[in-house]
């Protein structure tokens, strides 16, 4: 320590002039920069949140109308347009030859004037058929049915259509036969060619079946892997490979899993195409790493003292894990599982690869039947040119988002409820 004494011997201290005008100006500028930076940050947060709000607003704005449908009350007189089928033998096959299309169209023309059949949905006769199947006695009566209106009239009722449709709608309104109400068919029907007829039940059931397969496969396998890696795996080269594989799988783009499903499940193993079984298996491979990673974190969070305590009273390693560690880690594992399932529920691309983009007009009966899922249904409808599909697509998106929100809410609830601090 020789240098400091020489410098300190010559006191050159010149106190900073903090009160000087230049320094005051400089400090003011620094504070201005501070405020700007802070505003920039706030702006970034607000812009991001604003985008989310804009997205949800657009979807709800477009989609709310998708839950309603315009119907026209139409009188059909089967006495003047007799169908020569014995009411006792009425069934779908015998009605197939009855040309209900023409009967319905005639009734529409008669009741609504010339060109009346263009005002009702081209598939309106299906409603007539269902009414007959429901009660064959109507075949000898004069009945009034509420039939879905055509897309043009439907859009006109919701204030978004061409002038001719608007005018036709105005005429219908004057005669008081038209009404717009909640479209229960949207929740109970399946895909159709006409936007007034479509529903999400088929796709929704497909999603449920697919998720069921995904859950049954990925949950046990994921938990078992997490337990093995965290509790038993020896430190060896092959356990390193398992770890690396899982971390990589978590980062592989979802479409690659679709290619895997196509090449292995469909081409090599010859499983049924477009089925919930293959979709669920593909998504399970994708979801498994998420569950493993969440599971390992949850297991890691269980303090070693609990394992030591159990081992100390003579429990075997398997007993320690299944009696003590697993129950304590379960809330964390479940949270991770729900988040992984939510991601799988919103997934589209890999399912396109394995052919789950088919036109599915009847809900799948089992996991090997051709099916589609909600996100794919949204994708398919988004491609439709008919304007009526816009509101249906957005309505389906609302349903999907509501489910995802509920799942994530459940995950957050579980996390908060069972969060333990050791």
């Amino acid at each position, binding site marked *: *320590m020789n240098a*400091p004494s020489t410098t300190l011997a010559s006191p*050159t*201290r010149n106190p*900073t002039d903090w009160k000087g005008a230049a320094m005051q100006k400089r*400090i003011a500028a620094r504070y201005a920069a501070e405020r700007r930076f802070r505003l920039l940050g706030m702006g970034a947060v607000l812009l991001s949140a604003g985008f989310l709000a804009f997205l949800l607003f657009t979807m709800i704005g477009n989609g709310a109308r998708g839950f309603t449908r315009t119907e026209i009350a139409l009188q059909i007189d089967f006495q003047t347009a007799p169908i020569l089928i014995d009411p006792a033998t009425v069934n779908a096959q015998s009605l197939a030859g009855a040309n209900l299309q023409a009967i319905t169209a005639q009734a529409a023309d008669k009741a609504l004037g010339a060109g009346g059949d263009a005002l009702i949905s081209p598939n309106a006769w299906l409603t007539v058929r269902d009414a007959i199947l429901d009660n064959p006695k109507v075949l000898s009566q004069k009945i009034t049915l509420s039939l879905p209106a055509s897309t043009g009239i439907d859009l006109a009722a919701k204030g978004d259509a061409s002038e001719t449709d608007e005018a036709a709608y105005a005429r219908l309104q004057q005669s008081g036969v038209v009404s717009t109400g909640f479209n229960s068919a949207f929740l109970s029907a399946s895909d159709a060619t006409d936007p007034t007829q479509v529903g999400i039940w088929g796709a929704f059931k497909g999603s449920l079946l697919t998720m069921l397969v995904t859950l049954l496969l990925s949950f046990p396998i994921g938990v078992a892997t997490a337990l093995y890696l965290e509790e038993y795996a020896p430190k060896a080269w092959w356990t390193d490979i398992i770890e690396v594989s899982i971390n990589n799988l978590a980062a592989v783009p979802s479409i690659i899993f679709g290619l895997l499903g196509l090449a292995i499940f469909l081409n090599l193993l010859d499983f049924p195409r477009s089925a919930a079984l293959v979709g669920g298996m593909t998504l399970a491979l994708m979801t498994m790493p998420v569950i493993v990673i969440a599971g390992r974190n949850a297991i890691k969070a269980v303090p070693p003292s609990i394992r030591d305590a159990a081992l100390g009273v003579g429990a075997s390693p398997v007993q320690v894990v299944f009696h003590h560690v697993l129950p304590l880690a379960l809330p964390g594992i479940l949270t991770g599982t729900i988040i992984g399932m939510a991601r799988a529920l919103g997934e589209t691309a890999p399912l396109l690869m394995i052919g789950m983009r088919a036109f599915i007009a009847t809900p799948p009966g089992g996991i090997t039947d051709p099916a589609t899922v909600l996100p794919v249904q949204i994708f398919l409808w988004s491609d439709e040119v008919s304007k009526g599909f816009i509101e249906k697509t957005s309505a389906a998106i609302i349903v999907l988002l509501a489910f995802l929100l509920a799942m994530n809410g459940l995950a957050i609830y579980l996390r908060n409820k069972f969060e333990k601090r050791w």
Partner: protein
Amino acid sequence: MLTEEQQALKPNNPKMTARDVNVFYGAKQAINKVSIDVDMDNVTAFIGPSGCGKSTFLRTLNRMNDTVASARVEGEITLDGENIYAPSMDVVQLRARVGMVFQKPNPFPKSIYENIAYGPRIHGLASAKADMDVIVEKSLRRAGLWEEVKDRLNESGTALSGGQQQRLCIGRAIAVEPEVILMDEPCSALDPIATAKIEELIHELRGRYAIVIVTHNMQQAARVSQRTAFFHLGTLVEYGVTSDIFTNPKADRTRDYITGRYG
């Protein structure tokens, strides 16, 4: 230069004063009615058992407690007669005038040169590169580090040894020409040789800056300071000339602590 004895007996020349200072963290009171003068010409040591509030109080002297959301300070603390908690007081200026050295050396992950130049640069104390070079050399010399690092100013500050890092941090604080330097247990993370160097440095800096050092090491307090304040449970128990505190404490609690009954 005055001898240690003479220095100790020089009359007080208060640089900072604290009157009835209370500090709260949320609902919990950490400092209770502390009044103390920090002397310009002397090194002041804060001693006391851990958790007694000496570090907390030190951080109120340059308003570092502002960075803790739940902290609240009552009472009056002045620097050259100006209340540092007054709305007109600019905290940026205050911290430039009242520098701080932390328990663990915390050089920025930048070069040695940039570590020293950081303060002058943000405060605009040097406009030309040549001016900055002068400030860096002067600060490193005062921190007793120049000879060791003058050939490697562009190396990372984090590559230095612990003791060198702490001297770099002292140099960094000196570079903005502060009036007071607060040191929060500056040697607790260092080995004895590095500690000795820092203590020597404190000795060299005395008189130029008002220095306050928090320490849990009583021998260190006796070695480097001329004034000692003993804190216990958030209150200031005793404050006076260091030699008096250590040889003839007035309060029982001080005596018990110094003789090692608790701590």
